[in-house]
């Protein structure tokens, strides 16, 4: 069944969309899009480590991104720099270090474009297993921490006062972010993962009035983006990541039309 590269890409993409849907909602609610970007940029370093040590890419990226998240927390506590400056610092320096290391690894041929923007030809059966098992694990953990995470997203003090332990939920969520980046990097590419996280969720926000609806529409939006994106990638020979994100943008624009309609109806 997985003989055809396109079928493999479809399965991988669908798996990714199921996970980015709900996580993307939290990225929007908790204003973490730059945080997601930073983790994704640092993923390049993870990839180079994987290549040079002949390691599994997803695992290596997961470890690097988690470490970067840990360093970020330390820097936030120890310096007086604003959060966005620290994020920029980590994002670009880890990207730069990653590229420098690639420069040294002359014995390996890197497909930089594939790393940055995703490459459906590169998806192996093994990757599909990682995406589906990893993705299922991410969703399961997200379900377990949903209550404290969501409550503290609405109001931290309320969650803390009523004994939900929001700090633990936040730490676990950070690890989940590193994990989704690790499993989707081959598919979407590291420059566009945040787009895959936030654009379907932003589309969903436009057309939903409850958190659960937003998560549902975000998943549906992600799935449609993957399908439209991959088919057009095949048809027009465009890179997979940008095609998927462009499809997500198209859906977002459609959702804006829906807003216009409701405003008209109200008047």
């Amino acid at each position, binding site marked *: 069944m997985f003989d055809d590269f396109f079928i493999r890409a479809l399965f991988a993409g669908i798996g990714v969309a199921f996970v980015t849907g709900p996580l993307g909602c939290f990225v*929007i*609610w908790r*204003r973490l899009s730059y945080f997601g970007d930073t983790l994704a940029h640092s993923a390049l370093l993870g990839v180079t480590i994987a290549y040079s040590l002949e390691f599994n890419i997803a695992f290596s990226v997961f470890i690097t991104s988690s470490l970067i998240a840990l360093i970020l927390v330390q820097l936030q506590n120890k310096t007086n720099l604003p959060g966005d400056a620290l994020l920029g610092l980590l994002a670009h320096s880890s990207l730069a270090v990653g590229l420098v290391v690639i420069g040294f690894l002359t014995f390996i041929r890197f497909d930089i474009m594939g790393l940055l923007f995703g490459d459906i030809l590169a998806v192996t059966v093994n990757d599909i297993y990682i995406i589906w098992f990893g993705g299922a694990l991410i969703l399961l953990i997200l379900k377990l921490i949903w*209550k404290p995470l*969501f*409550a503290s*997203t*609405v*109001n931290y*003090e*309320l*969650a*803390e*006062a*009523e*004994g*939900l332990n929001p700090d633990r939920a936040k730490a676990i969520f950070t690890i989940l972010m590193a994990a989704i980046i690790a499993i989707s990097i081959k598919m979407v590419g590291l420059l566009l993962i945040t787009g895959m996280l936030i654009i379907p969720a932003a589309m969903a*926000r436009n057309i*939903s*009035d*409850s*958190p*659960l*609806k*937003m998560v549902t529409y975000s998943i549906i939006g992600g799935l449609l983006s993957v399908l439209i994106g991959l088919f057009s990638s095949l048809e027009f020979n465009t890179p997979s990541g940008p095609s998927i994100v462009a499809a997500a943008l198209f859906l977002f624009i459609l959702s804006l039309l829906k807003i216009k309609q409701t405003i008209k109806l109200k008047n």
Partner: protein
Amino acid sequence: MSSDKMSSENNILVKLEDAGIRQNDKWLVQGVSLEVEKGKIVTLIGPNGSGKSTTAKIALGIYKKIEGKVEKFTDKIGYVPQKISVDWTLPLRVHDFMVLTENLKDEEINKALTLTGVLNLKKKNLGNLSGGEFQRVLLARAISKKPELLVLDEPVQGVDFTGEIALYKLIKEISDKLNCGILLISHDLHTVMSATDHVVCLNGHVCCSGSPIDVAKNNEYKALFGDQASQILSRYEHKHDHVHSSDGSIKQKN
């Protein structure tokens, strides 16, 4: 003796011993000792910036780095914060907000919303409520989970006058019916007087405490609240034995 045993004997839900918190070498509040028992209402009063909300947050365990001691003997807590800034990037209806920290049955939600008079808002978006409506929803959420300890930080702010009296009456009823302890914060002793068992008057430290009548009689209380207090309780004598500086610390004792 284990602390659990002690609490069941004394009915104490939360206990502060000489508690305080310092931020950037400045005390926000210090030396607060108080305890909330089952079925009792303890009211914190004091002027703006006197550390009422801070004391409540110490009792709730929101602040971690505190001086002194705080002991909680219950996990079933309902909290109405003074300020709540809900982020409107979240699509949140009243119904979703009600089940934020506890899974409730629909009838339990309806009952709580009916008690505070806002059942009609159940399907409404939280962002579209008025200040008073939102306050009633906050209160409904806190009582819906049948807590053992209720911490209410100015729970009726923005509620119209008749509603205010009705809500305080409701708070008293809840305390009786659920036999829960209530830590209530108010800046107006007059309105909460009848519903209070014990009053702690704060101004960066505990100025005075006791039964509502005792506190109302107390000179420090009157010195803090000035004209307003003496209008209500003009029959009492007036003498203040120390002076406060602007940060609430005691400047001198006479």
